[in-house]
């Protein structure tokens, strides 16, 4: 690779694209050329850098200065001041800004301070369309290590020892899951990457795929080697247009480099990947519904057992893993399970990628060690609640998760502590709601989601999601009845234990926690016929 004095990274993630990062990139390229810096400074379009709601984002290396909301008109200043004169452009710098004069002493904003990038190691650092840049940052070395130095059993043991838990929501130990499929005897096995990401508030998988598609390809190939599968599929939501394009290109490149296809790296191991698009159904993120959908049917979950690990796609043993899970695999293989266990907590090693949404100052993508508290995430990384309003609830785990009141802000964020607090970590979505919102209205929005997304196969969820919506809607309309709240709770408890799949089992959680912590606000609607937040028009 050529040597450049500086790298200017322009985020090319979907959120930034929407804010016009392409024009910024083009302007940077021409401005750099005009300034005669073309041989010294390289402008690179990367994947998501994190603070997506402040895009377009530009980062200049080696200093690691992050500029937010960069417009085309700001480009000449950045080139002139920073790239030519070595002085950061204060007014554009993300975070608190300069303490002392000069670029080098810039303090990294707390936004980055608490973060730990394993999954997002390459996101925002490399051009996602360049396999060379991926390889330059140790890409495909883990695959090579597996194929040349490790038996499939050793790969599985390493993943087991790392303690990696599936990041798709259910937190099943990945190594154990792989061992089931590895043990199953069949003439054909599959690896499926679950990129259906439909949980409201979650967009991490999208940005991982956009920012670092090769890490998923590598993770899948390693999984394939470990379990004895020669075919992989990426099931991705149809709306993720850019991710799909990048993935297709990355797969093509990997094939050209002999990293996919037959006899990979001369090891005799064959593996190839196909991308399949979803068509708009949240439930297809559920692994068996996903399989039904891939087989060309309605995305309705199947009965378990049998589990996909032994009887999945077309009846064959199938490993289904989340994007983020797979992205963790190459570094675990390269650095070893011990290294991985150095992050996070004893029971939940590693990091978690969260997406911050709602009434919070810094929205976007973050990666933090497991076990960090909700308060740290909201106030230190997220920069607190905008407009001086008060915190009302945080919903963790997306719409399938529970809602926590301010008393529980110090709960550690991991797969065990959050459920103990009555919520869930789930996909890692985090929604912050301030006190300007009516809790009944928020609850109705949650219930509407499930009513709309229930596949309709089993009675408790098909009928239950409709009834929970109906009951909450009536309260919001001023027609609620107190006894309906008890009925809603009874129904919720039944849905949790009797629904066929995780959708129906999780659907009532948010309402249950809201009734637990904000029951009074409901009762005020019903008895006093008033909406404390003044948003329910009656």
């Amino acid at each position, binding site marked *: 690779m050529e040597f450049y004095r500086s790298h200017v990274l322009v985020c090319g993630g979907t959120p930034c694209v929407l804010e016009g990062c392409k024009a910024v990139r083009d302007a940077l390229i021409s401005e750099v050329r005009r300034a005669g810096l073309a041989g010294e400074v390289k402008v690179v379009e990367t994947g998501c850098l994190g603070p997506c709601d402040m895009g377009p984002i530009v980062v200049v290396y080696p200093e690691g200065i992050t500029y937010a909301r960069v417009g085309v008109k700001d480009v000449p200043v950045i080139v002139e001041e920073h790239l030519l004169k070595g002085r950061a452009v204060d007014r554009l710098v993300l975070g608190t800004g300069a303490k002392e004069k000069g670029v080098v002493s810039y303090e990294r904003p707390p936004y980055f301070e608490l973060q730990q990038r394993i999954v997002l190691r390459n996101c925002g650092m490399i051009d996602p369309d360049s396999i060379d840049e991926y390889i330059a940052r140790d890409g495909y070395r883990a695959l090579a290590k597996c194929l040349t130095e490790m038996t499939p059993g050793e790969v599985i043991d390493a993943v087991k020892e790392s303690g990696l838990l599936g990041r798709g929501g259910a937190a099943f130990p990945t190594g154990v899951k792989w061992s089931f499929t590895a043990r199953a005897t069949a003439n054909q096995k599959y690896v499926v990457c679950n990129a259906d990401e439909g949980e409201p508030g979650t967009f991490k998988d999208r940005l991982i795929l956009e920012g670092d598609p090769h890490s998923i390809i590598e993770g899948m190939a390693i999984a394939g080697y470990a379990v004895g599968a020669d075919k992989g599929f990426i099931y991705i939501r149809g709306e993720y247009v850019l991710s799909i394009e990048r993935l297709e290109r990355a797969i093509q490149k990997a094939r050209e480099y002999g990293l996919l296809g037959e006899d990979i790296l001369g090891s005799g191991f064959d593996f190839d990947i196909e991308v399949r698009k979803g068509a708009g159904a949240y439930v297809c993120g559920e692994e068996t519904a996903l399989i039904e959908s891939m087989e060309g049917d309605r995305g309705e979950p199947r009965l378990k057992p049998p589990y996909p690990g032994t009887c999945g796609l077309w009846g064959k043993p199938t490993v289904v893993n989340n994007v983020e899970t797979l992205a963790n695999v190459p570094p675990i293989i390269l650095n070893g399970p011990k290294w991985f266990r150095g992050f996070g907590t004893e029971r939940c090693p590693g990091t978690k990628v969260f997406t911050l949404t709602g009434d919070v100052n810094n929205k976007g993508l973050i990666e933090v060690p497991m076990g960090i508290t909700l308060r740290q995430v909201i106030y230190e990384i997220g920069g607190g609640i905008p407009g001086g309003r008060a915190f009302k609830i945080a919903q963790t785990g997306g719409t399938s998760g529970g809602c926590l009141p301010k008393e529980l802000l110090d709960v550690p964020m991991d797969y065990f502590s959050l459920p103990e607090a009555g919520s869930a970590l789930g996909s890692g979505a985090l929604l912050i709601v301030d006190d300007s919102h009516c809790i009944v209205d928020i609850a109705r929005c949650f219930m509407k989601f499930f009513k*709309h997304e229930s596949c*309709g196969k089993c*009675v*408790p969820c098909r009928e239950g999601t409709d009834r929970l919506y109906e009951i909450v809607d009536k309260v919001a309309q001023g027609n609620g009845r107190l006894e309906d709240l008890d009925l809603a709770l009874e129904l919720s408890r039944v849905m949790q234990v009797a629904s066929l799949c995780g959708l129906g089992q999780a659907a009532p959680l948010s309402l249950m926690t809201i009734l637990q912590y904000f029951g009074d606000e409901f009762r005020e609607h019903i008895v006093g016929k008033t909406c404390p937040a003044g948003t329910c028009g009656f």
Partner: protein
Amino acid sequence: MVSLTIDGQRVAVPEGTTILDAAKKIGIDIPTLCYHPDLEARAVCRVCVVEIEGQKLLQPSCAYPVSEGMVVHTNTPKARQARRMAVELMLARHPQGCLECIRNQSCELQALAERLQIREIRFERKLRDLPKDESTPAIVRDPDKCILCRRCVAMCHDVQAAGVLYPTNRGVDTVVTPAYQRAVSDVSCALCGQCIHACPTGAISERDDTEAVWQALADPNKHVVVQTAPAIRVSIGEEMGLPVGTIVTGKLVSALRRLGFDRVMDTDFTADLTIIEEGNELLHRIKNGGVLPMITSCSPGWIKFGEHFYPDLLEHISTCKSPQQMFGALVKTYYAQKMGIDPKDIFSVSLMPCTAKKYEADRPEMRSSGYKDVDVVLTSRELGRMFREAGIRFEDLPEDEHDDPMGISTGAAAIFGATGGVMEAALRTVYEVATGKELGALDFVSVRGLDGIKEATVDLDGMQVRVAVAHGLANAKKILELLREGKAPYHFIEIMCCPGGCVGGGGQPIPTRMDTRAKRGEALYLADRSLPYRKSHENPAIKEIYRDFLGEPLGERSHHLLHTHYTKRGKYPWLSS
């Protein structure tokens, strides 16, 4: 074997057994709704949920396999609450119309609500408000009563291969319907009525034609004639409270007389006639290089299926009408002549195990007598309704005999109602006609029983005739696909649309399941053995009709009255219309 504990009792069952079946073994009947013993479990109603120690989730016993050491509780507060809630939720979206419902007292949802003592529905009543589909003469769909158990979907796709019904939309908007919400009359439905047997509720039923029959019976100017199909005599007893498979031929005849029918005759007679015509057609095709294999034609469900899905194979189907329609054509010609009655005054009713026969009777081809050959087709269920309304007590009835001249029949005709029966009856006759020798053993056991596809080879004086029998359209499809590929090495194929044959017809008493189908079939073979004549060509009434009226098999009159042709309908009939 796997041993487990259910409600404190130890039980050992083979691996793969469901909790439901294991519980049954020790006398615990867990309530179910979407479960059907003949269909793959979908476990969607969640009525059968039970608690398994060590699991937070309840599990559906109808689908959950037992495992070693498992401890199951079927009636914990948690399980009962979930079960009752599921039923309450379904009822809240269900028309509370039991009193006016065709399934009143034979409805699984109703029985479940009663069993669980649901006394209150706390949710707002909401109906789907979907239109009823009464587009065909055979089946009626009332989607408001559908609880989305999908049993009909499994039946229509997996067992009948017609693929008419499928879930559409999702969530609370889900409905089971033909593609693009088409009426059943627009699509490639066999009208077999098997979905009725699948359905636990009144969401699918036969069209009820009893009122027309009551009217005719009350009309002094009508000479009302009835024919009784082979499969009815072993099933109508169930409608009247007798055990499954009771043979009630004589009681049936006297009950019909009491209802007021002027003449009670027997479809078995034309079943014998079918054998003569069809047997000769087969021999004719074999001798003259006609299209082979020849396929039986007495099942209108199969005919309609064939017209939709295999229009290219129609010339393989025997041109013989079904026994019902042969009877209809003769009653308004031969019988009318013989009795000196104006055919326009004859009202011809047929009692059938079958919904497709209602459609068959309405086909424009079925007017060879110059009138509608069969005026009304009643299924066993409708007949049961008439008997009950009229207060006829079966157990007290005497045994009567069918009337002349179309009342005498043979054992060969009786077994028409079971899968393999037409084939066996035909072989008894074809053998003797072709070889001129008497058949030693009459029972062709290899074509009996409930295997989906059965095969046999018969030696006709050196000529090896290969035959196959299929029942249930998915089985038929397998043979027809072979035929299409030119790989069906048969001379003669019997296809019955319904699993088990007509004993399992779509018009038979509810419930009709594999076990009931089997018992009724066995009863027919019993009836066969007890009859004086067991070969169609020995039936004296058949000899008489050829002598007095028809002339010879395949003759001109036969051709006109007893044979028909088929219509290429294609899979998407609405496309052409």
